Every structure is written in structure tokens, then in C-alpha cells.
């Protein structure tokens, strides 16, 4: 049985073109910092990719700093900004940020910083008025993700960036889920985090965009790579892979149409809700909650059928608590644990036949679990 991989928001398969490029470049073993010819060859490749990425997001090459991925980039953006600006002690983030922001803030808090959360509406869009109200003279940094990883909601980045600029506040965005799928103009923000493996490159590579003039300290000290901002020998093959990945033609419109079709078909299951928004969602992320069933069970049944999805249910988490994102958008108690996320690929699109199988298998297994459940939608309606 062929598997249907619908967890591209977790990670993506390596693109064939990326594999080819890696095979071509694998002979370049030189350390880009070495002054000899072998080192220089590697250095040239690294700089070529840096230029390509810069062009891709409307930035300058010297504003791109390679890291090990988005967790490092997010840690660096938050901690590095705090380290470089000790006078202001207030940070604002949305309540639906990724754990690599939330947990980093927990650490920063212990250093005497106040972290304030900004709420979102039921579609997952940040409350701009609340953001404005919570900004004070003491506010150093605002960090709001571009696209939410669980429900796919897109935030009004430029609007937030404008507010921050007026108040002279550093604005960081975690663009892991949007990079390569939504046009990004990095020049509008101060800091921006990206990861390679969400875009068919290899794992262990990402970058932090740092706008020229932004005050930030390095987290990793050592040999002075990345213009003294991020020490450690460059992940040469990682860099090469991300350079190739951004050149690939992505079928964004087709993914988007496929997403809408799948949502509409699955919403026909009685009691089913969409978490997030059809219109304000990224082209590839679908989060649904089915009535009276539990997400881990559905995830496992689908896995047995060769369909890979993820879930934010309480039972599937280490803390046995439901997803902070679903709580933040106010999902009710009958739906909060009955959640699965389907995330589509953007290089290859599901065929109509695959779409139909997916919908059919989900319907069958939801029905199976609803039959076992003591919580019935028919009774709820009465």
C-alpha cells in the first residue's frame, strides 16, 4: 500500500533536485573558512546561496546568517536581542507561538524580563488593538509568527511591523511555515527565522535574517564564522540544499485548491469543525476537529491505513494537556481533543484519486470512533 504523507508541516521529503545538487556538491569537503583553494571553492558556494536567499526575500546577502534551523534562529532572535539591549525589559508575543518561542521566553523571564501574551480571535488572527495597548516604553521586542504551524492562520505581518517601527521596537517573526509558500518581504521586519527541512531541504539547516542596524548579540561564540555572529563550521551541504530548495517551482495554487476541496468534503461529517480559517489559512495546512472522538486514536487508525497525519490532542502530548493553540482560539470541550492536522506538500500535489481515498478513509475511521464514543453528536443537537 502506498503511503499518503500528510505531515509536511512537521517535515518534508527531500526534493529530487536537492538530492542531485547534494550529490554534485558532496565532493566539496573544504572548510569555507580555510584560505586555500579547496576552502575557497566551498566558500563561494555558500556565498552564492546567501545571495540567492537574500534576493528571494528582498534582503541583502550580509543580512542572512545560517543556523542549525528554526529552533536556533528563534532562540537567537529572542535571547540575542535581550542580551544586546539590557535596558528594556518587556517582550510581547502571541499566545499561539511555537514552543521554541514560548519556552525561550520562559528562560528569558528568569533574567528579569516581563513576557506578555497577545490573544487571537477564533480564526487565530492576532488582536492588533490589544497588541497596541500592551506596548509600553519598556517594550524591547515583539515576536509574532507569520503562519501558525497547527492551524495555518496567516498573520498581518506588515501591519504589525508598521506598529513596531513607529514605536522603535524590534520585530521578529517566525516564518518557518510561510517561507517558500507566501511571498516574504524581509525588509519590512527586523528579524526573521527560517528552517530548511520544511521546504524539502535537509534537516539541520536554517537561517536568521537580521536587518542591518538591528542590535543583537551572538549566542554561539568561537571561530567567528558568519561575520562573527554565529560561530561553528558552516553546514555546507545544508546550505547547498536550502539554496536548491528555494529555486524549485511550487504548486501553491493547486495545493490551495486541494486544501479547500478536502476541507469542504470533510466538513460534511456531522459535528466537524475547521480550526482556523479557510480564507486566512496557508495553502497547505488543514486542522479539523471531529465531534466526540480523540485525535490520537484517529491518527493511529489512519496510520494503519498508510495515512500520516498529526494531532494536537491531550492524550498525544507529554503533558496530557490539549493544544495551546486550539485553547487560544476557543475550541469547545467536545472538539478540542478530536483534532487532526493534515499538511499538504507543495512540490507534489495529491491526485484526485488520492484526495478521494483520503476523505473516504478519514470518514470511515471517524465513524468507527464515533460509534465507540459515549459522546454523541445527535444528542448534543437536542
Amino acid at each position, binding site marked *: 500500500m502506498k503511503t499518503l504523507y500528510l505531515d509536511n508541516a512537521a517535515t518534508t521529503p527531500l526534493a529530487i533536485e536537492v538530492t542531485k545538487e547534494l550529490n554534485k556538491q558532496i565532493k566539496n569537503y573544504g572548510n569555507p573558512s580555510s584560505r586555500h583553494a579547496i576552502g575557497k571553492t566551498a566558500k563561494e558556494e555558500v556565498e552564492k546561496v546567501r545571495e540567492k536567499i537574500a534576493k528571494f526575500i528582498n534582503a541583502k546577502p550580509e543580512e542572512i546568517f545560517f543556523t542549525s534551523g528554526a529552533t536556533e534562529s528563534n532562540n537567537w532572535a529572542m535571547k540575542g536581542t535581550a542580551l544586546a539591549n539590557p535596558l528594556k525589559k518587556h517582550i510581547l508575543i502571541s499566545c499561539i507561538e511555537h514552543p521554541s518561542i514560548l519556552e525561550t521566553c520562559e528562560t528569558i523571564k528568569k533574567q528579569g524580563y516581563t513576557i506578555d501574551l497577545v490573544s487571537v480571535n477564533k480564526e487565530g488572527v492576532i488582536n492588533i488593538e490589544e497588541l497596541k495597548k500592551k506596548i509600553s516604553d519598556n517594550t524591547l521586542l515583539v515576536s509574532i509568527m507569520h503562519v501558525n504551524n497547527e492551524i495555518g492562520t496567516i498573520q498581518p505581518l506588515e501591519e504589525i511591523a508598521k506598529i513596531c517601527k513607529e514605536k522603535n521596537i524590534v520585530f521578529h517573526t517566525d516564518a518557518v511555515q510561510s517561507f517558500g509558500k507566501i511571498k516574504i518581504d524581509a525588509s519590512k521586519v527586523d528579524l526573521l527565522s527560517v528552517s530548511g527541512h520544511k521546504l524539502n531541504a535537509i534537516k539541520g539547516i536554517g537561517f536568521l535574517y537580521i536587518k542591518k542596524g538591528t542590535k543583537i548579540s551572538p549566542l554561539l561564540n568561537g571561530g567567528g564564522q558568519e561575520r562573527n555572529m554565529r560561530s561553528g563550521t558552516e553546514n555546507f551541504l545544508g546550505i547547498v540544499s536550502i539554496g536548491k530548495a528555494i529555486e524549485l517551482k511550487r504548486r501553491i495554487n493547486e495545493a490551495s485548491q486541494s486544501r479547500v476541496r478536502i476541507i469542504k468534503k470533510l466538513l460534511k461529517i456531522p459535528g466537524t469543525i475547521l480550526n482556523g480559517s479557510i480564507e486566512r489559512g496557508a495553502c497547505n495546512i488543514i486542522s479539523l476537529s471531529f465531534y466526540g472522538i*480523540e485525535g490520537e*486514536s484517529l491518527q493511529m487508525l489512519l496510520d494503519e491505513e498508510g495515512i500520516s497525519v498529526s494531532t494536537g490532542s*491531550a*492524550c498525544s502530548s*507529554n503533558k496530557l494537556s490539549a493544544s495551546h493553540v486550539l485553547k487560544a482560539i476557543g475550541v469547545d470541550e467536545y472538539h478540542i481533543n478530536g483534532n487532526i492536522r493534515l499538511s499538504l506538500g507543495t512540490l507534489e500535489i495529491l491526485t484526485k484519486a488520492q484526495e478521494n481515498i483520503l476523505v473516504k478513509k478519514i470518514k470511515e475511521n471517524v465513524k468507527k470512533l464515533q460509534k*465507540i464514543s*459515549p459522546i454523541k453528536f445527535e444528542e448534543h443537537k437536542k
Partner: protein
Amino acid sequence: MIPTNYSKKVIEHFSKPKNIGEIKNADAIGEIGNMICGDKMKIYLKIDKKAKKIKDIKFQTFGCAAAIATSSMITELAKGKTLEQAKKITNKDVADSLQGLPPIKMHCSNLAADALHKAIANYEKNNK
């Protein structure tokens, strides 16, 4: 993090659970909710009043694979037992019969045992 270390027995009882559904005109029902993760379990009993035996038992569960598997297993363990025997079935018995549960899922076996014991207690309360 979904535990990948579910035993074969858990997967078996999760994929093909035994004794699903409700018993119309049940002699007793035991319902338990878990405050931690939100799971819910309902056990229905049909009792042979003379022999004080569990003639039939069914369950309905809202929960993860472990919760469904423990429900299925407890119905298997309790079926045909006398009430006194069934009262002695512990959460450990359920977990052991399933070849163990991941530590984070042990609370699911409590749920199953509690639901059964509650159903029996309800029966005894109403049939003094």
C-alpha cells in the same frame, strides 16, 4: 508525542475492540471521566441476578488508543465473572493483560477499572 511503544495486545484491542456499544435496559451503568486528559468511559452491565454473575458487558469510550484498549480488555476480563470476582479486577490486571502500557498511559487502566467498579457499586446500591 504519541507513544510508539504500545504492545501488540494494545494495538490488537484498539484496532478491533471487543464488546462495543450500549446495552438497552442495562442493570447498571458506570461512568467515569478523567480530569487530566478529558477521556470518558461508560460501562454497561447485564447481571444474572440469581448467580450474581456478569451476563453481558459493553463499553463506550472517548479516548486514545490506550483508553479504548483498556476498555475492551476489562470487558473481556469481567465477562462471565461473579460480581465478587469482578470487584477484584485491578488496573494492574488490565495493564498486565495488555502486555503493559507506556508509563504516561497508565492512568487509562485506572479509568477502566474504576468504570467497572462503579457500575458494580451502582448495581449493588439499587439491588439491596
